[in-house]
Every structure is written in C-alpha cells, then in structure tokens.
C-alpha cells in the first residue's frame, strides 16, 4: 500500500463537489452537528453537513473501526447441530476531516490488530476505510499532541492529509487508498505549487509555535513506569481520585481492551466483541474469586504501564497516547494522562 507521496490542491468551493463524488460510492463519516447541536462523528448524507471548523468531538472516531459492540460470529443451533460463520463489515467508507491525533489513533489500532495472530474482522473493516485528516493550523485548547508526535500535522501514516491554505486545501496523498479517494474526482485537483508546499510547512511551524512548553513529559514518566520505580503508595493516592468509571478508556483513541460475549436466544446467537475497561475490578476477576488486580491503584498502574512503558513503546513504536486531551475533558477525578504523568515525574500527587 505504500507509494510515493504526492501533493495536490483543491479549491475550497470544489471540496463540496469532491465530497458529493465520494458520497456516490462510499459512506462518508465526518464531524457534523448532532441532534442537540453537539459536534459528533457521524455518517453524513450531503456535503453541506460536513464541518470544516469544529471542536474535536468528545467520542473519537475509533467506533468506526472498533464498534463498542462488534458482531464477529453468527451462531445457529438447530436440532443440536451448530453452525458458525464469521461476520465481516465490507462497507466502503471514508472518514473525513478527522484530526491528526485521531488519524494516528486509528493507525495505532490497525497496527495492533495486524500483529500475529492478525484479527481478520478488524482488518477487513479497516482495509475499506479511507482516513482523510485535516491538519490543525490552530491547536485545540487541551491537546498535547506535540508531546507524543501525533500532531498538529502528520508526517506519515495518513491516507490523505488536508491543510487549510486559505483559498484552497492542500491534499497530501499518502497511500493507494488515498489515491483512490481523489482519483474519482481527479478533475477537481491540481498539482500543488512549490509555494503552496512551503506555505504548508510554515503553517505547521506556526501551529507548533502556538503550543506552550511541553505539557506531558512522557520520556521521564516512561523511565519510572518501565522499571517499576513509581511508589505503590503514589498509585494508591492517585487511585483515590479515580471514580473507576472507565470513561478515559472509552474516549481514548488508542484504547482497545475488549470482552467477548454471546447475545441472542433460542439457538440464534451473535458473538460480539465489546469494549471493556482495565479500570474495572471485574476486568481481571477470575472464576475462582481470585483477582490479581483487586486494588484500584494496581489497576491504574496497569493502565499507565500499557500507555507509557518502554516495553510497550518498543513493541508498538509509539506511546499509547495521541495527546488529544479527551481524558482531561472527561475525567471527573482529574486522573487524566498529563496529570498522572506529571505526578509520576514529581513523585507526588496534589503535593503529597
């Protein structure tokens, strides 16, 4: 799927035509206004619904590659004879105007599911999803993507990355899938000029300049987490603030822990994969009643080991955080990523 990246431009007024073209052959999922006026990633019916200037929705677009309840096997039992068949999602879809952090999140999930043994149901769905991201000329209020190399612009891993140049959008094509999404409407695109490519670089530098000093020091937390040099007492103090609601897991673009359940009755069942949370006590509860992570502090230690340890960094080539800042917004207990990373660095939580 790798190809020589090339760069095109499209006039802003033509972007609507492009979207109309995409809508003819694919489902288009984009940030759009929800029923109560909130911004949500959802399937759109017309190009006008797609938002270009928006605050990143609280639920990330991971639900479109990893649905909260994901049917994977159909089970049918008649006269004591059982038949099972896999369920695949083969819809051609475009994820339009997602932010770089979320595009990175999806790339992270795909890489995880590609690891042997590969997960066919996920990969078939992801294979048919084209991710078109919109670079952030202006950083969002809570984002810290610069700390985990996930924004405000992507340098690799995107199918298409759009940049707002004022009159036009610059479109960097990164993969054959991206190529497919522009070739349907080839007449709308021009090759980018050198000036336009330079302008994109300037915009990236400006955007990076808007971030203050680094807010989430992964490297120093990683050293401590990977060698178990964070005191158990500190995890305990922090976990006192955690409500164990699991919201941080569910809105995290890279969290993918799941459980497998059968749903249905009377001989017809659907085996579903459902999101689960490592912050729930039952996550590790065994049938015998034994629970290796019975204490909230142990569960919090687990979460941050998976996110920022060197062991996982070596395996995945990235931290399990894309710096989108959603956990800051959603966590009522203030045990979000930057806060916990800071506490690990200082060895103290709320001064204690």
């Amino acid at each position, binding site marked *: 799927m790798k190809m020589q990246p090339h760069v095109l431009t499209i006039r802003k007024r033509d972007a609507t035509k492009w979207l109309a073209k995409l809508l003819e052959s694919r489902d288009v999922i984009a940030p759009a206004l929800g029923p109560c006026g909130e911004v949500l990633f959802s399937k759109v019916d017309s190009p006008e619904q797609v938002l270009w200037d928006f605050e990143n929705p609280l639920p990330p677009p991971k639900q479109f590659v990893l649905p909260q309840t994901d049917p994977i096997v159909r089970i049918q039992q008649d006269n004591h004879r059982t038949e*099972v068949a896999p369920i695949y999602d083969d819809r051609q879809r475009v994820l339009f105007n997602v932010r770089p952090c979320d595009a990175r999140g999806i790339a992270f999930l795909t890489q995880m599911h590609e690891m042997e043994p590969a997960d066919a149901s996920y990969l078939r769905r992801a294979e048919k999803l084209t991710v078109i991201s919109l670079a952030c000329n202006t950083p969002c209020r809570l984002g810290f993507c610069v700390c985990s190399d996930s924004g405000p612009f992507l340098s690799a891993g995107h199918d298409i990355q759009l940049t707002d140049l004022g009159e036009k959008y610059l479109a960097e094509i990164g993969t054959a899938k991206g190529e497919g999404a522009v070739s349907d409407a080839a007449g709308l695109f021009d090759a980018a000029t050198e000036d336009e490519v330079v302008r994109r670089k300037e915009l990236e530098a400006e955007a990076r300049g808007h971030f203050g000093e680094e807010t989430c020091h992964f490297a120093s937390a990683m050293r401590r987490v990977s060698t178990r040099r964070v005191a158990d007492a500190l995890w305990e103090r922090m976990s006192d603030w955690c409500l164990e609601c699991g919201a941080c897991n569910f809105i995290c673009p890279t969290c993918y822990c799941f459980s*497998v359940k059968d749903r249905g009755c009377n001989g017809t069942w659907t085996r579903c994969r459902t999101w689960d949370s490592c912050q729930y006590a039952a996550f590790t509860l065994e049938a015998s009643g034994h629970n290796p992570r019975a204490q909230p502090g142990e569960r919090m230690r687990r979460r941050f080991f998976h996110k920022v340890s060197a062991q996982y960094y070596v395996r995945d080539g990235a931290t399990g955080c894309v710096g989108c800042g959603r956990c800051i917004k959603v966590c009522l207990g203030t045990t979000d990523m930057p806060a916990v990373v800071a506490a690990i660095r200082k060895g103290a939580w709320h001064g204690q």
Partner: protein
Amino acid sequence: MDNDAFLPQIARIDAVRDETPDTKTFTLRFREPEDSKAFRFLPGQFVELPVFGYGEAPFCIASSPTRPDTFETTIRRTGSLTDALHVLGPGAEVGIRGPFGNGFDVEGARGKDLLFVAGGIGLPPLRSLIRNVLDERDGFRSVTILYGARTPVDLVYKDELKEWETASGVEFHVTVDNTLPGWTGNVGMVPILFTKTTLRPESTIAYVCGPPIMIKFVVQDLFMRGFREESVISTLERMMQCGIGKCNHCAIGHRYVCRDGPVFNFKQIRELIE
C-alpha cells in the same frame, strides 16, 4: 484472512466422567475430521471453549498429545458458563478455539528427573504432561508425582491415581488437608510429601500447579531444598477473553499469559514487571 481467530470449531462431547461433586472430565471429539487432524497441541496448552449462548472460557487440555483423536478437559463448576457446561451430556456440541499458549517444553525435559507437584484442580494441566511422559517413559529419568487436595473427595482422576500408585517407574504420593472416614493415607499440606521422597535438585525439573497459596509454600520449600528458579515451572492463570494476546485481560506488564505463557519458570515470573 478467512481463518478468523474468533471463529470456533465444533466439537462433540464423547463422554462425561464425574471427578468430584463439582468437577467433571469431558472427552471431546471434533465434529469435522479435518479439524481433528489439524488440532496439534503440547501439554500445558489450553483451549477457549465456547458454550453457545453463554460465551467462552479458557480450559487446559488434560489429556496427552500422544493419544490423539479425542482430548479431555477437566472442569470445575464455578459460574454460569461452567454451570451450563456441566448439564451437557454425550452428543452435545460446544465450540473449540485453539490450542493456545506455549505449553511445556517436553523435548527439553528428556533425560531429566521429573517432579510433579499438584494441588486440587491443579492436576489436570500436569496430567497432560504426565501421561505424555508415561507414554514415552524411556525418554525420561525418574518420575515423581506429589498430589494433595482438601479432602479425599476432592481428588481428581481417582482411578488413575491408583494406577500411578502401583505402576513401576512412577513414584506417587498423595495427601489430603482434611481427612474423612475411610481415608488411610497421608494427612497434611502438600509440602509434607517432600519428606517421603528423595529430591535431586540438580538434575530435576519441578512442575508445580495448584491454588496460589499452595504454589507459594511449595515453591518456597523447593528453593530451600536447592532448586534453581529456572527449573521450577508453573502455569499461570488469568481472566482471559481472546486467547491471542489482544484483549489484554491476561496481561502482566507487556507479557500475555495466553500467548507468552501460561507456562513460565520462576525466573521468568520474577522478571514480570508491571
């Protein structure tokens, strides 16, 4: 990509044997002969066993790869899935995914003295290896089996224990924590059996499996008696959902009990960081 990791094969229950009041051994046979042919496993590996409508859970394979065609798994009734499984009889269909996990290093054990220490329902995973070893008895040196359970009723594989007691080439000792009328054997925790046998720490691989508290005391005892961490081996248990290192339920640090284990030696266990 069609070989979906979550798609179970169908197996039929061939026979059900009561082991204890809450534990049964199920003999399973794949419905499709090609599934049976493709099913190759090592002692110590496990399967995910879907009971349709209830979900699935991991169970160790309790029979030996030296006896293919069917395989056995010994299951205690502890929840909704195992409740549902325990009412199934011969002919009923369940699913099988696997085998999963690393299994015991049978080749590495050849030519060594083998010591098996099991507690209660910890015998089934070791029984797979024991039967494998006894079927290829010439390849191994001494075989010592020490087994304990809470009461005489809780001993599994009662017929087989009798065979081991009398078999040549096997040293077998059994004990119970609490005696019942009619029991004439040893009474006490498993470590008391160490005094009944001659241990050869330098040439022996010890396989320990049982409840956490029993493992703790047995292993302490073995180290005191000169065993090295590398030659004491156990199988770990964790809550599991997928069996292929993806769902994260069984993760310890960046290791996965389902994929990197469940068989670990105690040096590896000590080095698990989280």
